[in-house]
């Protein structure tokens, strides 16, 4: 079956522009997670969704970052007025639910480069 997909795989943008990163989770997975991975570092948790709801937005680095999910499916991470420090790989993962342990399945990530 299809895994988690993310688009675009690579994105180069100029400082100050807005970008949208897309995540398509595995069908039926109600939980969805976004992470940021800076070069040579581990994964930094950004936000999670249970269904279409994101109860805790405290992991988002600044108010330039926002995320939404519709139809318990696709999620979009938006970064407004991008800065060079936003350059990183953004990973999305999904799992059946957050209420019990279920394996997270990761997408291949979007590599964002802000010039």
């Amino acid at each position: 079956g299809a895994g988690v997909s993310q688009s675009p795989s690579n994105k180069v943008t100029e400082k100050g522009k807005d970008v949208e990163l897309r995540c398509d989770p595995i069908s039926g997975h109600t939980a969805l997670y976004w992470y940021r991975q800076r070069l040579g570092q581990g994964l930094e948790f950004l936000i999670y969704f249970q269904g279409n709801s994101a109860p805790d937005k405290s992991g988002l680095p600044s108010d330039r970052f926002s995320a939404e999910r519709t139809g318990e499916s696709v999620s979009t991470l938006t970064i407004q007025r991008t800065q060079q420090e936003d350059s990183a790989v953004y990973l999305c993962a999904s799992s059946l639910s957050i209420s019990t342990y279920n394996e997270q399945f990761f997408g291949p990530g979007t590599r964002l480069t802000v010039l």
Partner: protein
Amino acid sequence: AQTVTQSQPEMSVQEAETVTLSCTYDTSENNYYLFWYKQPPSRQMILVIRQEAYKQQNATENRFSVNFQKAAKSFSLKISDSQLGDTAMYFCAFTKLYNFNKFYFGSGTKLNVKP
């Protein structure tokens, strides 16, 4: 707060030999899950092995096994009979039990398997 520390940025091992990757963590929780993830150059994060803290028996998955020392808050990964395909970044991760909305990752260890 939960923290995960991987003190070995990079390691090398000869093909067919055994290597151990270290991970320590800090938490006040008594029940939690620990994970090792593999990230090859394709960027796709893959779950290698999982350990529930309430289980005393160390988890094993084929050539991969862990040494879980709860009192020491240590969770090392042993890879036996190393193969070239094991070359990747390895991340240790933690999540609280019954609260699978946030995962904490270490900074990773780059493993090079040499022929």
